[in-house]
């Protein structure tokens, strides 16, 4: 019994000790809970929030592009697609059969759906088919009760209601490529599109807007359980262009008659581009949905360069449209007075070289006004010889040639106005006197864009350093709002008014006096008459042999060797408001010169512009101020 008692005492002692150990361990647990839930509660609370809160981006609605009267040139159109949530669909194969009975579904679509359904979490919707038309969408919607897990998802896609008419001016949006990434996280959204060219690219950031965010609670598998917070973001702002779509459309149709042409119509006093046409264009909607490799190659290798905006990026020798620059430079330097007489025998000799006038027999003796009217080459050969290239280049630069005009479009070309320094620096060869003679009629190295020619015309009629622009002065804004006094903002060019009046009078005579090179293209409507200057620029050199055997007709030459046809014009004569420059590459279908092919386009566009008179149709427009200044 004593032994039994000892055993019992030991057991009790050890049991109490064990209880003590257990108590201590329990206290350790309590301490651990205190440590986690009190001392480190903030840290773990934060980690918990990071765990459960996911941030989703909401693509902002892209701003529209409107013309000056609010007509949408680029808009957003709802698109519909069928999606299927695998976990809500008992039998995907059977469901696809049911869907295929309602809308067309290719085998490739079916394979893709089955593959995606296998790969993704079962709660992730799988796109069954994109771009449903309205009828297909309705067919699915009506039958949704029999199609568990199948639903219609709505998205937005870019829509260009005028198709190719406003291209390549508007440009297009397309899927984000690798090199576009960086910066804005919205670019990483799977079906986000951004501006790739034209206005869409130029004002992409404004049009794009700011992405919204949706704070969602997600579980460990990434399934969204509910939305905690939503910030709609900032929809893109609308871009209101100076373009008058009616005129753009008119000019485009007018140019479309020629194989490849560009036409720029500016408000001379504000620099607003009312029409900026480059034909042929392309259908921008193709880029939105994505082009096939063949389509892309076809566009790129097309000799008519539809992707190229010839109005701002096409570079041409200006030909005779350059003559006003030479005239002004000569008047400015005193090399020429209004009464200086120069005789044209049909050719011009410089050393051993012979330069021909376009008129074989020559023009006889002329003064400046007549020389412009008849576009006498010899007159300007001689003038250029007297001047040298540098004063001509200086004058051309004052009129905006040789530099990008700074219009709000990507990809503008600068053109080229050569100087003696330029030639030496670039080629290492001295400027040759003969090159000055060629430059006097806008050949040689002289190269301009149609937009530059149009700006030159605007500066001729306003005597101001007019700058062209596409966006209304009031910018990315609401349509119809008052423009500020645009004309007053341009610096004066400081050309003596008498010089300009003389040149403009000569240009008036070109069109409106019998014998003028573009007399056939005059506007007969009272008060709408235009003045202008034609130009026909050589693409290839005419050899002496060809001259001896008689010039071949342009239509006998290969298309790409024919001369370009150019024309610059202003209207109305007396109080010019609109200026227009047109180039028809290689003389178009008929292979005609500037006065024959380009002038009629300018005539029709200026006539239409004056009839519509978009500049004056905008309320509170500063034209009245500008007109008062002029008179």
């Amino acid at each position, binding site marked *: 019994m004593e*032994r*039994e008692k*000892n*055993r*019992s005492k*030991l*057991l*009790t002692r*050890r*049991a109490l000790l*064990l*209880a003590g150990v*257990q*108590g201590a*361990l*329990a206290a*350790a*647990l*309590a301490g*651990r*809970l*205190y440590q*986690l*839930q*009190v001392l*480190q*509660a903030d*840290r*773990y*609370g934060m*980690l*918990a*929030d990071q*765990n*459960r809160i996911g941030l989703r981006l909401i693509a902002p609605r892209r701003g529209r592009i409107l013309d000056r009267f609010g007509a949408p040139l680029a808009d957003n159109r709802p698109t519909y697609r069928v999606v299927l949530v695998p976990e809500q669909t008992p039998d995907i194969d059977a469901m696809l059969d049911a869907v295929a009975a309602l809308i067309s579904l290719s085998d490739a679509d079916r394979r893709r759906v089955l593959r995606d359904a296998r790969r993704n979490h079962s709660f992730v919707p799988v796109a069954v088919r994109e771009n449903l038309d309205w009828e297909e969408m309705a067919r699915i919607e009506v039958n949704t009760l029999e199609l568990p897990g199948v639903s219609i998802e709505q998205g937005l896609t870019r829509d260009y209601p005028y198709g190719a008419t406003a291209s390549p001016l508007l440009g297009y949006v397309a899927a984000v490529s690798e090199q576009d990434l960086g910066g804005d996280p919205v670019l990483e959204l799977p079906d986000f599109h951004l501006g790739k060219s034209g206005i869409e690219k130029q004002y992409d950031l404004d049009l794009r807007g700011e992405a919204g965010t949706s704070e969602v*609670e*997600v*579980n*460990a*598998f990434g399934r969204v*359980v509910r939305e905690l917070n939503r910030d709609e973001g900032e929809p893109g702002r609308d871009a209101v262009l100076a373009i008058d779509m009616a005129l753009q459309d008119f000019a485009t149709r007018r140019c479309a008659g020629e194989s490849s042409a560009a036409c720029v119509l500016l408000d001379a006093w504000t620099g607003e581009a009312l029409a900026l046409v480059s034909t042929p264009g392309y259908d921008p909607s193709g880029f939105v949905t994505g082009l096939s490799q063949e389509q892309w190659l076809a566009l790129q290798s097309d000799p008519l360069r539809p992707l190229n905006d010839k109005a701002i990026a096409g570079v041409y020798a200006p030909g005779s449209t350059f003559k006003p620059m030479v005239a002004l430079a000569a008047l400015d330097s005193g090399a020429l007075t209004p009464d200086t007489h120069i005789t044209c025998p049909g050719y011009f000799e410089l050393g051993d070289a012979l330069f021909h006038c376009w008129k074989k027999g020559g023009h006889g003796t002329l003064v400046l006004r007549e020389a412009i009217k008849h576009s006498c080459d010899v007159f300007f050969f001689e003038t250029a010889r007297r001047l040298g290239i540098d004063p001509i280049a200086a004058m051309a630069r004052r009129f905006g040639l040789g530099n990008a005009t700074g219009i709000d479009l990507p990809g503008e070309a600068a053109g080229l106005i050569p100087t003696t320094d330029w030639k030496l620096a670039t080629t290492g060869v001295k400027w040759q006197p003969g090159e000055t003679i060629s430059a006097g009629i806008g050949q040689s190295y002289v190269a301009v864009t149609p937009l530059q020619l149009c700006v030159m015309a605007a500066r001729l009629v306003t005597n101001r350093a007019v700058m062209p622009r596409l966006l209304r002065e009031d910018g990315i804004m609401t349509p119809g709002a008052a423009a500020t006094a645009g004309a007053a903002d341009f610096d004066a060019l400081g050309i003596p008014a008498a010089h300009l009046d003389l040149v403009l009078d000569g240009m008036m005579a070109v069109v409106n006096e019998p014998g003028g090179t573009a007399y056939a293209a005059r506007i007969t409507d009272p008060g709408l008459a235009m003045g202008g200057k034609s130009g026909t620029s050589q693409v290839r050199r005419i050899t002496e042999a060809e001259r001896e055997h008689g010039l071949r007709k342009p239509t006998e030459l290969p298309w790409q060797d024919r001369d370009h046809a150019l024309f610059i014009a202003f209207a109305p004569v007396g109080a010019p408001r609109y200026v227009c420059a047109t180039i028809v590459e290689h003389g178009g279908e008929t292979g005609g010169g500037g006065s024959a092919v380009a002038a009629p386009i300018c005539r029709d566009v200026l006539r239409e512009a004056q009839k519509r008179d978009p500049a004056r149709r905008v309320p509170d427009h500063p034209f009245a101020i500008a007109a008062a200044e002029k008179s």
Partner: protein
Amino acid sequence: MAERDTADFGGGNTPVGGKLWSLNWGLVLLVTVIAGVGFAMLYSAANGSWQPWAERQAIRFAVAAIVMIAVALIDLRFWLRFAYVFYGVVFVLLVGVEIRGAVGMGAQRWIDLGFIQLQPSELMKIALVLALARYFHGLSLEEVGKPWRLVVPAALTLVPAALVLKQPDLGTALMLVLGGAAMLYLVGVRWWMFAFVTAAGGGAVPLVWHHLRDYQRARIASFLDPESDPLGAGYHALQSKIAIGSGGVFGKGFMAGTQAHLSFLPAKQTDFIFTMLAEEFGLVGGLVLLALYLLVLAYGFAIAFRSRNNFGRLLALGITVNFFLYVFINIAMVTGLLPVVGVPLPLVSFGGTAMLTIMFGFGILLGVYVHRDTRIGRFGDSEG
């Protein structure tokens, strides 16, 4: 003698009605309260639904409670007599899962009996307590002091532990070894013996490590540095800590725990249910549950001390220690103090066999209480 007939062969001297009356109803109430906490957490785990866990758990608890009371009424001498038999049967079952066990969660743990998936390893915890209590009941202190007397209890403990480890179930193996060691300590095995065995065990660590499965090694490695691989093996431990820590002092509210409900928490209805409780009810909730468990332990020790027979005392202490091990290992595991080894929180975690085992244990504990004054001779006969 007619009385004995009606009260079956284990009936002892008290009629059934009297025995029922003499049950420790305070402990029964306590156990029910803790189980009730479990129902509530399972209800929450199912996002406010009795399906699929809370209702089944409640039914199991009701069945297990009947088993518990039935067991409590069985005379201790019955257990003494059949302790080795019981151990033997469970051991055979344990070997059975090695042969034709179902494979689940990468671990062979169940024998599918059709109506219940039996986990012999859980039952082994009770069987081991019974067998060790039976073995030491008849040994004097002097005999315990002889090392060769410890060969049998060491084998009783380590052989099933090794089998369980091979399943592989690290948690249960750990519990068997620690439970067995506690029993040996209680009966008076000398300190230096434990020191010797621990040292020997320490030497065996590389051997054990060699036999561990990859996922077990990964769990131990991730326990040592859970943040090193937060999406891999450390995921459970880290997510559990995040959930508990973010609960703060008062918790996020019933059914408002974000981590558990958003599935960041694995096995939230089983091994990690304490995490959910600590997330939803905070430090306060965690401490209250811990206090309830400590109260159970206090009952266990009190019952042990009031028992007047050695067998009963050893049983009561063994069961209490086992219960404590459940609680400690589980909470230490979910709070990141121990590796994730897979031990359920007793009475609260969803699971049939564990519930049955624990309630069976409480039945024996209550039986010790009911039969506290029964005198049991060295070889199971009644002593005068």
